[in-house]
């Protein structure tokens, strides 16, 4: 069945390496070559030192649950999936991503733990775009 949820529209200026990485099953993150810090979401300028010297590197794809919620109300393609668990993920390399969490029971939120280790995986949403999701390990 075709992917029926919102599919990101990669922009050619800032985020293309992220989406190229996702297509290849890799988490690519931007890092400033001046202060050596990674950041997310991708920017054309380092939010830490304002350098515009940004490079991309393959990140570990590992992180931890910072916080989560169970969505009982959603629109579009997601409406069919309620309840599902959304979470903010602290990346091993620093900074944070939003996701739909996999490998958890939305009916038992008390079993989902802040701080639990998660690993990234990618779902092919279209011929050109794969979307990252995180799974509890």
């Amino acid at each position, binding site marked *: 069945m075709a992917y029926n*949820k*919102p*599919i*990101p*529209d*990669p*922009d050619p*200026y800032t*985020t293309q390496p992220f989406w190229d990485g996702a297509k290849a099953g890799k988490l690519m993150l931007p890092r400033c070559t001046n202060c050596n810090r990674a950041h*997310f*979401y991708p920017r054309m300028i380092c939010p830490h030192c304002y350098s515009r010297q940004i490079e991309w590197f393959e990140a570990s794809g590992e992180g931890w649950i*910072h*916080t*989560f*919620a*169970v*969505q*009982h*109300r*959603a*629109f*579009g*393609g*997601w409406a069919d*999936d309620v*309840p*599902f668990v*959304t*979470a*903010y993920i602290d990346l091993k390399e620093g900074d*944070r*991503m*939003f*996701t*739909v969490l996999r490998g958890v029971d939305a009916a038992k*939120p008390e079993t989902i733990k*802040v701080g639990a280790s998660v690993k990234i995986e990618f779902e092919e949403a279209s011929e050109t775009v794969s*979307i990252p999701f995180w799974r509890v390990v």
Partner: protein
Amino acid sequence: MPSNPSMSAAIVGAAESDQIGYIEEGTTDQILHIQAISNVCAQVGISPSEIEGIFSVGYSTNIAEYLGLHPKYIDTTGVGGCSFQMHVHHAMAAINAGIIDIAVVSHGESGYSGGRKNRGRGRNRGAGGSDPWQPASMFADPYGAAGAPSNYSHAMTRHMHNYGTSHKDFAQIAVTTRDWATLNPRAVMHSKETNPYGGKITIDDVENSRLISWPLHLLDCCLVTDHGGAVIVASAERARSFKTKPVWIAGAAESMSHQNMMEMDDFTRTSAPESSLAAYKMAGMGPREMEMAMIYDSFTITAAITAEMLGLAKRGEGPSLWEGGKAGPGGSGIPVNTNGGGLSFSHSGMYGMMLLVEAYRQLSGTAEDGVHGLPGKQTNAKTAIVNGTGGSLSVTGTLVLVADD
């Protein structure tokens, strides 16, 4: 050095649109704005033609054109529900700078009627707008979060994790706020007569209401209504020349921490410590001198965190401000959200105007004068802290207001 703008301006009137709540026959933002402005001008005893500055969320030129005004100061700050606290801040600054003497801050939002028109379009999915190349469109929208409740719930989870709070602690906020609504006949949830779901509620009712975004239940969430409101802000020189009593702006400030929730560093902290500290400092007062509080309660978690941020409760103990009904009618603490709050009075999407209108009524001693024949409940407060929280727990505006006595 510029002078401290504290007390250089006052709110001299506060009114609502003719109708508020669930307007079944439909309405528009424009209707709500204009009715509220017309009503507040009549209350204050001025002609709309005397308005020199217009402050609204993106609507100021519409208002000016509709009323045939040519304002000297136009502000359209739109940063979510706290915009109106900022409008008052900005109006005070413009007045203190000598640019204008009389400003209107106006709000008109057909959150219910307009929402019905847009039903199913999945609008308002989070900060960042609908440009597909915006960070929110690319890195948040793909994950099915559906508006404010689906985001704010993450803050409650983290609060529980950090501080050991439980949903029951937050439920008390909804219960106490509803108690205030039962004393305000204009509140949507005043009684079974105003709404089938109105009247008093219990902690069990909150805990058993359906889940919207765990841990947020339905009764943790604000209403989505139609609402218009307006206040007049006037210079100190003019403030005592009207039919109404001034309520003085002793302190005003604003701050922000992020735009998108994925950039929220600490999910249990807003920028209100910054905005309230600056407002307290301008006022020369502190949290212990606040005799009432109007706290943005888009959700119970918003109110709880904000109580902590304003210094009204210890960090991690926000719900304690309401514990056992302390902040409610006849409670042992300071009265909080005496109109019934966004949870039970009215909340059109951006609630900041309702905070202002109620704070004005309380401090001007007019809460029981009645609006359209419907009185509210007067408290004895002579000082108030008013804090708006907008966006995704991301932007705050704080006012310290004092009565004229």
